[in-house]
């Protein structure tokens, strides 16, 4: 017998028994997680803060674009802050999936929480799953809050294709949480997870248009961005919100990232 990872055989036969107590686990983790100020704050309030900050602090963000944009363009008459909304949503996805979730999981690994769990009938996968749920939930809440504020404060138009925006949002979450899972899988320590996550987070935000949203994104950045998970999410949501047509390339890109990274993350995941 070789030195197999001990969780491999148990994973195969755990069936449903390994998930008894998942409800209490999710509840307890959520409650404990809410006690940390930073993580819930960044997940829930940060997108709205950015939106409001940019909307009110930068001059002209709330003025309809009529001068630099040709009248036939889809951007004509929109406010810059409205075109910024898909980017803010993408940022919310990126923040939860990259800066919060991997660090939480890596911390649990470093502190031996996952190892401790693996001695109980609950599988450590349950802990990872609970934090995927918590962070996905936070993202949804954070995005909803930003949307409500955007509607109230900036009178942002509703999407032209709601279904496309929703699809892009879900696919973007899948792709970005797959990236986050890979970081969580390979980072030996919380500090390493944080370092890796940050070195991905900021370039991804750039490519998702945090500094050059929608219409003002340089073509080169847009070309590169459409092949990254967060850039594709931002572009696909922008298309669904303001344009016509289906962002096929971007959606395929997000599906491919998920399909490649998620199995890789599961394969590489270390419980201790």
């Amino acid at each position: 017998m070789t030195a197999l990872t001990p969780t491999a055989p148990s994973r195969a036969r755990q069936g449903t028994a390994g998930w008894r107590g998942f409800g209490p686990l999710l509840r307890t983790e959520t409650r404990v997680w809410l006690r940390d100020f930073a993580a819930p704050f960044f997940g829930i309030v940060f997108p709205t803060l950015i939106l409001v900050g940019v909307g009110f602090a930068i001059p002209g963000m709330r003025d309809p674009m009529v001068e630099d944009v040709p009248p036939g363009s889809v951007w004509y008459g929109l406010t810059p802050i409205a075109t910024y909304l898909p980017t803010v949503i993408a940022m919310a996805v990126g923040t939860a999936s990259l800066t919060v979730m991997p660090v939480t999981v890596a911390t649990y690994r470093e502190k031996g929480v996952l190892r401790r769990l693996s001695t109980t009938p609950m599988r450590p996968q349950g802990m990872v799953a609970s934090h995927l749920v918590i962070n996905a939930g936070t993202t949804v809440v954070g995005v909803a809050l930003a949307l409500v504020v955007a509607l109230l404060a900036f009178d942002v138009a509703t999407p032209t294709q709601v279904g496309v925006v929703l699809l892009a949002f879900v696919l973007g979450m899948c792709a970005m949480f797959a990236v986050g899972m890979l970081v969580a899988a390979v980072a030996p320590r919380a500090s390493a997870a944080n370092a890796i996550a940050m070195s991905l987070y900021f370039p991804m935000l750039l490519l998702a248009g945090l500094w050059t949203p929608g219409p003002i994104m340089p073509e080169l950045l847009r070309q590169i961005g459409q092949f990254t998970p967060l850039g594709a999410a931002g572009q696909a949501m922008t298309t669904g919100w303001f344009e016509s047509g289906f962002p096929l390339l971007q959606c395929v890109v997000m599906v491919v990232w998920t399909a490649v990274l998620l199995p890789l993350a599961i394969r590489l995941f270390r419980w201790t």
Partner: protein
Amino acid sequence: MADPIVEVRNLRKTYGAKVAVDDVSFAVQPGEIFGILGPNGAGKTTTVETLAGLRSADGGAVRVLGIDTLRDPAAVRDRLGVQLQESSLHDKITVAEALGLFASFYDDAADPRELMELLDLADHADKQFARLSGGQKQRLSIALALVGNPQVAILDELTTGLDPQARRATWELVERVRDTGVTILLVSHFMEEAERLCDRLVVIDAGRVVAEGSPAELIDGLEGGRTVVVRFATDDAARGRTLLADVATRHPDVDRVEVSDGGLEVAVTGTPRVLFAVVPALAEADLVPDDVRTVTRTLEDVFLAVTGRTYDPQAEREPALAGEGDRS
């Protein structure tokens, strides 16, 4: 004797060229506190982690509660409690939350409140993990190992880092837990702990069992008999040394004498009857010593006898380091 509740036969585990466990066998009877003792890196933790189904083995057989945990680790988790070294919890989870959460994983869990009473944690139920003292954290860790109502509990180095008072309190708790019917596997590098707590034990050194038995059996089985140390006042020291050296040459129960502490102390070693040789000789010469004490032999002497080395818990290299990647 009943069927063993835990049985390990010829267990072997290597990490590349490094042998963590060479050949370990032992059997634990129901209701025992069974010790696995040895210096750091001897292979104790690897042994118990393997029998708990957390690691694979390269050879040998393991049965816990009749289950082959090498083949089917999941089958035993509901009835085996494990307290691991260096595993902690989220800083902000409270004692009650942690116990309630872990209880929810088990088929037939213990009442967390009763466990908190048993382990003196009831007053700290709402305290967050990071705010617990070392002893409280350790007691919580034991409680978590017991919350599934296990038939067997593995406690690994449970008093490391505790002050002597907390350590003794923890020992009492372990006995209390055993009295509730749980069989306990106690892993320790701390000889005094094993001597105090264990009904039987194995001493492991460099991945092999070097001694097995109850602490009393092992100590009584030592060669070299017993030592009496006699301390003299400065004025009597010269006479005392001569007298006891003379006793050594003519008395059958005395093997040797050793002088220490600038000539004030004389250690007389011989058979268990050595005291009977020393005291009459002193009485006859009317030589009143300042102090007489018999040297208590411990499991450390057993270790010395079976390995030829003085027991140093930190002496060994850590073979487990090589296996870090394999632990996953």
